[in-house]
């Protein structure tokens, strides 16, 4: 069945599409005619040709309206050709009509033409729907078309998340790469001595700005936090999964763990801001305080991860171990933990990545974004008295820095924030991808076992 016979057979589309094509061509033709007349009259009267191609607002409107009409005609015909029935085509036509109308909000003339396009699409859609009502075969065909439309629309929406991710990553990597250098990664501002070793940057002349202390601070804080969370999480998970009876008490514990997971990060931030300095007399922002606050946040994640990994150990392993005469503790230590270890590792790695990027908790409890390398060598004072920045806090400082008058040596460029984001995202992606790959590998191994 050729195009021509198809369109001929569907008289209603022919009506709509044909009128759209003719109107569009008519507009273009009239513009062309106007142009020719203009040129001829200027030739005749000797006026210069400079203004021969008038492109006033009205002219632009006419031109664009004509283009819209042609586009509407082409789209309508394509829609009706691709869909087997009027039903699907009607929906598509209505959607196109609405889009074109809203897109024609350029000038008053375009609005009128856009309105005409929308009305013709609506007429076509109604005619199609009317036909569907009286045609039982069309109903079945309609559901097939409905399925196709739904599937494609759903596919489009699911692309949004993926596109967003790649767009964000691409933007950060391109805008931030201009600042990355070894200087950037190791210097702080202003450079100071650290642990008695002269900072390699001190020899350089510039008031170095860099995220070195931020990276180190982040690693320290998150490392401390994981050092607290991993043992606690493992212990609680073993307790909950193996030892505790399913009674009211354990339900309360689980409820509180979920509650802790839901606490907003800013609340933990102000908690850290005041609690540690007031109650224990530490410096207002301290590494250990920040680590403990972050630990509150990460602990539920670690418990969840460990519990899931322990539950994923097949029951046969436990049964076999008991059958061989092991005690409960021996079973846990040698059988369950060894099987669950990869799962716990990947989950902890994911939690590490998430905690690394957490800003609201640490910016108020761990470090002023504009601090630099610490100057003390005593470990306890280092942990509780120094305020080193963390990388997310540093990014925020770089974001607002150019706008605050206090930091005069701060280069007023926006890309510095992106450079910090580059480092953060690079570390985060490396950790996350390693964890996800590890999880894939692990699930394949388990499936094969």
């Amino acid at each position, binding site marked *: 069945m050729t195009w021509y016979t198809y369109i001929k057979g569907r008289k209603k589309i022919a009506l709509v599409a044909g009128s759209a094509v003719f109107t569009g061509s008519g507009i273009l033709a009239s513009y062309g005619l106007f142009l020719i007349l203009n040129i001829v009259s200027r030739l005749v009267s000797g006026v210069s040709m400079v203004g021969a191609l008038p492109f006033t607002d009205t002219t632009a409107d006419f031109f664009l309206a004509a283009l819209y009409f042609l586009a509407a005609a082409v789209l309508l015909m394509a829609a009706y050709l691709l869909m087997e029935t009027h039903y699907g085509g009607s929906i598509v036509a209505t959607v196109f009509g609405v889009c074109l109308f809203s897109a024609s909000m350029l000038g008053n003339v375009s609005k009128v033409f856009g309105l005409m396009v929308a009305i013709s699409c609506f007429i076509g859609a109604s005619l199609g729907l009317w036909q569907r009502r009286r045609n039982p075969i069309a109903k079945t065909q309609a559901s097939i078309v409905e399925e196709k439309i*739904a599937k494609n629309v759903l596919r489009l929406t699911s692309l949004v998340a993926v596109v*967003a991710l*790649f767009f964000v990553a691409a933007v950060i990597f391109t805008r931030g790469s201009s600042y990355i250098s070894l200087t950037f990664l190791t210097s702080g501002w202003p450079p100071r001595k650290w642990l008695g070793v002269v900072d390699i940057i001190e020899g350089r002349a510039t008031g170095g700005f860099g995220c070195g202390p931020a990276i180190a601070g982040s690693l320290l804080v998150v490392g401390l936090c994981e050092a607290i969370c991993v043992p606690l999480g493992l212990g609680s998970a073993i307790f909950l999964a193996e030892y505790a009876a399913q009674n009211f008490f354990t339900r309360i514990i689980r409820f509180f763990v979920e509650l802790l997971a839901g606490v907003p990060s800013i609340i933990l931030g102000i908690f850290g801001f005041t609690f540690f300095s007031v109650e224990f007399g530490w410096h207002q922002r301290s590494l250990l305080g920040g680590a403990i606050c972050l630990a509150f946040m990460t602990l539920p994640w670690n418990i969840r991860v460990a519990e899931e990994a322990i539950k994923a150990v097949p029951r046969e392993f436990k049964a076999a171990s008991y059958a061989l005469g092991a005690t409960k503790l021996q079973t846990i230590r040698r059988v369950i933990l060894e099987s669950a270890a990869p799962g716990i590792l990947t989950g902890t790695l994911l939690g590490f990545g998430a905690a690394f*990027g957490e800003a609201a908790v640490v910016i108020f409890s761990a470090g002023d974004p504009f601090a630099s390398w610490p100057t003390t060598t005593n470990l306890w004072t280092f942990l509780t008295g120094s305020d080193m920045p963390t990388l997310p806090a540093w990014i925020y400082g770089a974001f607002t820095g150019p706008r605050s008058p206090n930091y005069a040596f701060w280069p007023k460029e926006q890309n510095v924030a992106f450079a910090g*984001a580059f480092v953060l995202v690079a570390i985060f992606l490396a950790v996350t991808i390693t964890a996800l790959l590890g999880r894939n590998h692990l699930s394949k191994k388990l499936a094969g076992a």
Partner: protein
Amino acid sequence: MWQGSPAIINWLLHGFGMEFNSVDEFGIIPYIFSTVYVGVGATAAAVAIGLPTAIYLAEFSGSRTRNFIKPSMETLSGMPSVVMGVFAYFYIAPIVFVFFGGFLCPLTAWIILAIMSLPFVVSISEDALRAVPNSYREASQGLGATRWQTALRVVIPEAKSGILAAILLSLASVLGETMAVWMIIGSVTTPPITLNPLLPSNVISSMIATYIYSSEAGQTAQLLQSLYGAGVILLAMIGTLNIAVALLARNRAPKGE
């Protein structure tokens, strides 16, 4: 073993500081309104895109597509919120400015919060949809329905409580989101009580962050107490949502057949 909620402990430690005459004239009420406004809008946008995605992943997609989409979304969800805030300030706010006229406004917040909470909504909704037994789908297709008709009329009504839980949980996480909102909400001292999303506004989490960052709160006890009060209110909102979700889950469990 666990302290439960640290803010309640702070509240008890620092007195019952519910100052309603803090820097904003009417107290905390404009902030409550604007926080709920931003949260509901962002959740609506996230669900509008996330629910169809979840339906696609649960009903229609093949395993290769799933294995590509799911890890991408997990990575997106873990993306640090400062980075998303920086991205929103430089890329989303100008777009909103060009098309709609508002720069640092709730509309920008809606867009970036929707993107950030999208993976969360999708994963929970998809779990809820997958929990519907396959026998329902097979019965429906045996009666002649297409896959889309099955999804729309059979699977979604069965998974309704799970999807509702997803919506409430994502609302709770959006309410508590600080860093991204802080950068793009256009911090004003008193957020306007209006339904216009193009005026710069403020939310509770961003307000607390601003005052603590500038260390003003360290000086006056009154301001600090009002910040704690605001924090308690935020916590109450989120806690209510969590309790609602827990009740939903408990209503769902006995119904298993």
